[in-house]
């Protein structure tokens, strides 16, 4: 489990073995290859948190067809690499989104649609929506617009694929590194009512944090 949190892209044990045998170069090549495969196959769990849910069907069906780039919808967060948060998030939704995000297996990415997760958008003075999503969970690609057209959603996918291919530092790594920041923000806005995580006991982090 430890390796899950601070691991690089390949299992650290494998990396050690390769380095011992003087094959660190092989490791780099393998990582590159794996990154390429990761960018070519993205399983999406589409969480229809807002208006953007209406542009998800066109994106995934025959007119725009995201599947030709290897972007496929799956039903459960367990199997997904990417979660699409399509629009503003109410506090009630944010609780579920955090839960869903934590159920996903690393590496995992987040794409948000619309202006609302960036800065409140049209609902900036609403008492029930959050304004800055990246205070609570890390976001890899923002697709702007109200609503973003399916073309721009696809462009968001392409941007994400390039970032994965280049092996850039992704949101989930930031989340693992700055866990306290994100958890504090979540606690501040959601009060004490956050579900305990699937894998870690966030409230006893000093005791090792293993649930």
């Amino acid at each position: 489990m430890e390796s899950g949190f601070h691991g690089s892209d390949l299992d650290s044990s494998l990396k050690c073995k390769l380095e011992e045998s003087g094959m660190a170069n092989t490791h780099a090549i393998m990582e590159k290859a794996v990154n390429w495969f990761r960018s070519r196959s993205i399983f999406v769990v589409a969480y229809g948190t807002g208006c953007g849910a209406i542009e998800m069907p066109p994106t995934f069906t025959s007119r725009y067809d995201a599947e030709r780039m290897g972007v496929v919808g799956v039903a459960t967060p367990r199997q997904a690499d990417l979660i699409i948060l399509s629009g503003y998030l109410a506090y009630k939704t944010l609780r579920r989104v955090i839960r869903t995000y934590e159920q996903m297996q690393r590496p995992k990415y987040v794409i948000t649609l619309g202006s609302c997760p960036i800065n409140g958008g049209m609902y900036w003075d609403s008492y029930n929506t959050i304004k800055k999503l990246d205070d609570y969970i890390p976001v890899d690609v923002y697709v702007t617009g109200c609503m973003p057209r399916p073309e721009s959603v696809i462009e968001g996918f392409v941007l994400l694929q390039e970032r994965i291919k280049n092996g850039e530092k992704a949101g989930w790594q930031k989340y693992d590194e700055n866990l306290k920041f994100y958890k504090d923000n979540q606690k501040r806005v959601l009060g004490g009512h956050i579900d305990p995580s699937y894998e870690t006991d966030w409230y006893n982090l000093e005791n090792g944090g293993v649930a």
Partner: protein
Amino acid sequence: MIDLSSKLEKLSLELVEKNAHLYKVTVKLENLESILLSFLNEFGYITLDSINCRDDLEEGLFTITYCLQTEKRDHVVMVQTSIDRENATLPSMHTLWPQAEIMEREMHEMFGVDFPTHPSLIDFALEYWEHMPPMRRDFDTLEFVNSMNPFRDQRGDNLDVKVEMKKRREEKKAAKLKAEQEAAAKLAAQEQQNPDSEAQNNE
């Protein structure tokens, strides 16, 4: 409609015609239950379309509107009543119309209106809400948002437009004033210089 109007006159109520499909009756709170009952059973208004609540903060009242329709659904009658804002309490209508249960649940959450006979006053849309019921007019959503959520920089939306406009006008005014003063000072300086130049010219 004349039919309903005459029936209501017997109850000493006036039916106001708003347009061809919309009528309004204003009733007192103590008569509300009996009048709604007679609307349902005697006048044939078997459908409750919605219950609307309006917060009249200045008068200290909530104005509640029951929108009723007959079987034909070709017009709407608004039965309107007012309740006190403090300790707002209404009789629950879920026994007359089952759909009232959910509408009253929402009103309880959004305005804090109490329904003593309601079977399920649970959460509707909000979760763990600890503040004032949000649809009350004295709930300041802007202040609430600013206290809960930091905005990204460079966004001025979370500011009050009126205050900002006033500020901007004042800034403009001040700038204008400053410009005038500067111009006056310049003029004065020029005037100060001019005598010299004139003097030079004279020389």
